[in-house]
């Protein structure tokens, strides 16, 4: 059994090899992209092989541990480098390598002209390696390796144009915020090891619930804090919008399709633990819902095309956590997959636009600012059409991919926590609004480019548009892998495939078919309302909302609820002050100063005694006599014992 999967180590290894070759053996920018793509493609093929091999197995055997070597062994602590092949990891591998491959190809077009593209592709390959380690690892520690590895690549890629101060800062912010999550994650791992005595999934999940019972809430919450960092959940979301400083394909790959979903994957992977703690589940669901709403609210007013998408990503990730929190892990993963399709597509489309405008716009005009766009529909038809499909998908319009996954989530929320369902519904409307706002401002209406600029705008090259088209197809039909029961019994292939993984969970409550249908219609209506709103405002130029919505609400959204400023004031500033204080006051003044004072005291004693040495011989004699008298008096008993 295990032997038949013994090749899986190649899956992460090949991209690593690609990175290695690009770093050490290759100086040619043209070849670098090829190397990167070929290695990822090879990985993708291997993943497909894994997938089919897995399908060929009976359901109960679809979980295979492949041990590569023993990694850390110290006393009772033993962790292997070993991979877990099961439906969940296979789905993730498919998404990572599949979407990753498309983005790699797209990158050739997007980054091919950059002087540093060798470096770029090696980072990208390194990222694939880390991400695959994350999803394939069969224990928490290996997951953590990937977890930090993707963080590192994210850091490097966000700061890819490091000569820009803002990029450098954004990279660091991403890494540090992630570290805060990782801190909790590590503590979670330590707690697990302390109580369960192992970090291997199989052993931890199979352990007697009583073993972890005393700390299960703590463990799951700590793990979830880690997930919040990685998946940019409120309040640790602040790094993701800034992360848009990186090249756009990076945003597509890392900050939309794969890395940010690691948190969701982790929660799903640990469903056995989360399910044991009602508190943790509630927290996950509430944080997810709040994040979804919160980010959607901010996205409503942003003008930077990538920032809108970034907040949208945060919001969609919120949906996924909401799904997990209400026990619909399958739905969460489903949304993860469809989101990977359409959000990658959206980013790549945005990249295509930015790429075109970069060359066209006059100096000083921001190619990412929606206010500098408009009317690009005819100039960039492929981009426009694919983005339209993706926008429909994310808005949850049937029968595009997002509809099915989001529907399942809302269903779960409705069954378990109606309040959260309302939040989700509202968010859906907002999502439709801001996404169509983006679409209309970019492609619709009158162009805001001047004539010279307009003439320079070109549709992107094939190498960029083909991935767009492919993803557009996936965004359109991707939802059909998980058709709900109401429409066709037994067509939920996706749920069926993942079922063995989540088999340990209690059976989910399913409302009646009619309720389900009503919910769908409601969701669709909300989406339609959002689209209508966007159309009214941005195509028709109706100012009805300006009058309806209080100014403060608008500003609050535009200024991203001042979260960065609050952090600066509450955390960053004080920490800096404390650090300086520790240094200047505690370290320099008190500790070092105290030592100096001690030294000075001794020295001044020395000086005091030194100046009794007057040079006058009779003084010396006097000292002697006094000493002699004391000695004499003492020893003959006049003085002492």
């Amino acid at each position: 059994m295990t032997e038949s999967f013994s090749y899986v180590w190649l899956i992460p290894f090949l991209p690593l090899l690609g990175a290695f070759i690009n770093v050490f053996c290759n100086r040619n920018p043209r070849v670098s992209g090829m190397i990167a793509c070929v290695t990822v493609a090879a990985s993708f093929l291997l993943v497909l092989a894994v997938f089919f091999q897995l399908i060929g197995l009976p359901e109960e055997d679809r979980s295979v541990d492949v041990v590569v070597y023993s990694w850390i062994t110290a006393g009772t602590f033993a962790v292997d480098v070993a991979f877990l092949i099961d439906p969940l990891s296979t789905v993730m591998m498919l998404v990572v390598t599949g979407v990753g491959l498309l983005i790699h190809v797209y990158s050739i077009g997007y980054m091919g002209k950059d002087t540093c593209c060798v470096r770029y592709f090696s980072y990208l390959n390194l990222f694939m390696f880390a991400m695959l380690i994350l999803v394939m690892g069969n224990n928490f520690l290996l997951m953590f390796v990937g977890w930090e590895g993707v963080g590192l690549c994210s850091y490097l890629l966000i700061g890819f144009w490091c000569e820009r101060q803002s990029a450098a800062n954004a990279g660091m912010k991403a890494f540090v915020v992630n570290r805060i999550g990782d801190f909790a994650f590590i503590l979670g791992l330590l707690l697990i090891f302390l109580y369960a005595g192992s970090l291997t999934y199989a052993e931890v999940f199979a352990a007697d619930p009583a073993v972890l019972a005393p700390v299960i809430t703590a463990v799951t919450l700590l793990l979830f804090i880690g997930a919040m960092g990685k998946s940019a959940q409120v309040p640790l979301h602040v790094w993701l919008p800034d992360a848009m400083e990186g090249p756009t394909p990076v945003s597509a790959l890392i900050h939309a399709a794969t890395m940010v979903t690691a948190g969701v994957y982790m929660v799903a992977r640990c469903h056995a633990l989360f399910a044991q703690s009602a508190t943790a589940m509630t927290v996950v669901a509430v944080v997810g819902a709040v994040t979804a709403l919160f980010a959607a609210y901010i996205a409503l007013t942003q003008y930077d095309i990538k920032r809108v998408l970034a907040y949208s990503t945060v919001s969609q990730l919120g949906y996924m956590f909401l799904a997990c929190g209400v026990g619909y892990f399958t739905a969460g993963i489903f949304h993860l997959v469809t989101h990977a399709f359409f959000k990658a597509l959206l980013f790549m489309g945005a990249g295509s636009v930015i790429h075109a405008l970069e060359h066209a716009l006059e100096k000083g005009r921001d190619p990412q600012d929606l206010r500098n766009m408009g009317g690009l529909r005819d100039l960039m038809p492929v981009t426009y059409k694919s983005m339209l499909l993706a926008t429909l998908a994310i808005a949850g319009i049937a029968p595009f991919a997002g509809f099915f996954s989001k529907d399942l989530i809302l269903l779960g929320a409705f069954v378990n926590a109606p309040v959260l369902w309302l939040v989700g519904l509202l968010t859906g409307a907002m999502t439709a609004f801001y996404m169509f706002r983006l679409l209309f401002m970019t492609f619709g209406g009158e162009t805001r480019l001047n004539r010279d600029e307009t003439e320079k705008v070109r549709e992107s090259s094939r190498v960029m548009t083909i991935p767009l088209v492919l993803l557009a197809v996936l965004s359109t039909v991707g939802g059909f892998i998980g058709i709900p029961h109401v429409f066709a019994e037994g067509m939920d292939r996706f749920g069926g495939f993942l079922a063995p993984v989540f088999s340990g969970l209690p059976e989910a409550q399913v409302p009646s078919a009619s309720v389900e249908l009503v919910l769908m219609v409601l969701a669709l209506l909300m989406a339609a309302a959002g689209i209508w709103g966007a159309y009214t405002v941005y195509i028709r130029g109706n100012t009805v909302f300006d009058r309806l919505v209080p100014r403060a609400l608008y500003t609050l959204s535009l200024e991203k609820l001042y979260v960065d400023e609050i952090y600066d004031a509450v955390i960053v500033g004080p920490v800096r002050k404390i650090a300086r204080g520790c240094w200047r006051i505690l370290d320099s003044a008190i500790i070092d100063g105290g030592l100096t004072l001690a030294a000075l005291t001794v020295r001044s004693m020395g000086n005091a005694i030194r100046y009794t040495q007057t040079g006058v011989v009779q003084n010396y004699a006097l000292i002697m006599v006094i000493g002699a008298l004391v000695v004499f008096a003492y020893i003959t008993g006049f003085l002492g014992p």
Partner: protein
Amino acid sequence: MIPVSYYLVLSAVLFLVGATGVLVRRNAIIVLMGIELMLNGANLSFVAFARQFGMADGHIYVFLVITVAAAEVAIGLALVILLFRNRGTVNIDEVRSLRW
């Protein structure tokens, strides 16, 4: 017969007078004399004790001490002369260039 303690007291007084002389007189010659006085105080004790014990060694010691003292004084006077040559003074409290 004068008891031995009288001699001892006298010797102690001599010793202390000599020591006081060393401490308070500025003239190097007189300081030297103070030291001689101290030694003689000790000598007196020796003699007194020797007399009390009826032994000769104490007396012999005194002779030896007197010889040693003479040698010391010779050196001392030479040093004082050198001092006078170098500095033109025999006041020892003015000799204080080596200090601190």
